[in-house]
């Protein structure tokens, strides 16, 4: 069994790539494309009569394949199906980093999964609290309850909107300017930020419409998303490009982190960098920029 380090609740998650857990050729090395997280799917990608087979594949993939630094999340079947409990058991037994709760509509849904996860952690001798959770909001009710969902558990690292189902509920279709989900995305972002967790946008499914994809990614970045779900490896590079900090931002962040550390040693709380007032509140943002810069190959220093 390949030991995986304890999952990190807040890490870089610009790109989460969906992979059918049932396809051996796909899951054996999905990490080579350089996405931050892979999302092994037991839900929509797997036919109803192959749910059992997909779990066996998933278990052996999780325990034998070295995914290196790539995060491995599993999308489990909805709470209204007979499958999700066994899905949770196999995820925990196999050591998945996190579980994506499909069609999440309330804090109670998170609690229900959390309880099953905890039972599985006990059953399989995993550290209780190790397995992270994220929720997919796929309905108007889920969006309206976004804040209670986001703040339902210490295991929750993020929340994502699932466009396909959501648009159907809202009787709309994908629009180039994103107006179809503008409010929902905004509401979810607000809730995620208020709860202090990450927020991810939905997949863009028309692989032939590169222009539409690029516009959506730029809008995601502008709205403040942490990352995006993807359906094809060829989408990864562009997301990473858009989410990369500018060179100027990296230099500024480096200065801020260094100044805060140096001034802290001298007991100074407030000071100026390049004429701008800086205090400790700037540290998390600057450190995030440097971590992002490192992931993008733009920063090789040792401040983060």
């Amino acid at each position, binding site marked *: 069994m390949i030991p995986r380090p304890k999952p990190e609740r807040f890490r870089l998650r610009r790109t989460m790539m969906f992979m059918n857990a049932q396809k051996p050729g796909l899951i054996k090395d999905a990490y080579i494309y350089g996405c931050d997280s892979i999302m092994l799917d037991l839900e929509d990608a797997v036919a109803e009569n192959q749910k059992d*087979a997909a779990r*066996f594949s998933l278990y052996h993939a999780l325990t034998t394949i070295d995914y290196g630094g790539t995060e491995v999340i599993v999308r489990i079947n909805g709470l209204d199906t007979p*499958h999700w409990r066994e899905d949770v058991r196999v995820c925990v037994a196999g050591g998945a980093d996190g579980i994506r709760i499909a069609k999440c509509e309330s804090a109670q849904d998170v609690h229900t999964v959390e309880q099953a996860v905890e039972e599985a952690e006990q059953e399989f001798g995993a550290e209780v609290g190790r397995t992270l959770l994220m929720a997919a909001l796929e309905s108007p009710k889920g969006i309206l309850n976004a804040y209670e969902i986001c703040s339902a558990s210490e295991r929750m690292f993020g929340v994502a909107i699932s466009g396909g189902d959501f648009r159907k509920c809202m009787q709309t279709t994908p629009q180039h300017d994103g107006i179809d989900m503008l409010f929902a995305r905004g509401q979810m972002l607000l809730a995620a930020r208020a709860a202090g967790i990450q927020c991810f946008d939905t997949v863009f499914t028309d692989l032939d419409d590169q222009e539409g994809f690029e516009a959506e990614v730029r809008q995601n970045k502008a709205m403040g998303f942490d990352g995006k779900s993807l359906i094809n490896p060829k989408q990864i590079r562009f997301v990473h490009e858009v989410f990369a900090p500018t060179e100027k931002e990296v230099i500024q962040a480096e200065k801020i982190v260094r100044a805060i550390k140096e001034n802290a040693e001298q007991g100074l709380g407030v000071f100026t960098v390049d004429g701008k007032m800086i205090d400790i509140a700037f540290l998390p943002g600057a450190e995030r920029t440097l971590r992002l810069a490192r992931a993008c190959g733009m920063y090789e220093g040792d401040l983060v």
Partner: protein
Amino acid sequence: MEILKPAIAGTLESSDAQVTVEPGERGIELTLTSSVMNPYGRQIKATVLETLERLEVKNARVIVVDKGALDCTLKARVECAVFRSCGQSAANIPWGGAVR
């Protein structure tokens, strides 16, 4: 486990294997074909037999049509076929126990 009824798991796609198990009386009767028979036939056979042994399958006819599956896939297909044949594939799988 006792093979109660014929069951099948896996596909004939590249990198996969299709495993069929049927009730038998004379120990394990394995029929193996593989697209990588010369370099890996011996190891495939060993993996299939080890997996069956772990599941305590004593008697079965087992047909493996391998299309270049990795060991982890072979195990998954054998296990799924066996649990299906016993009607036990949907829940309470002994992950990390007999399945490992």
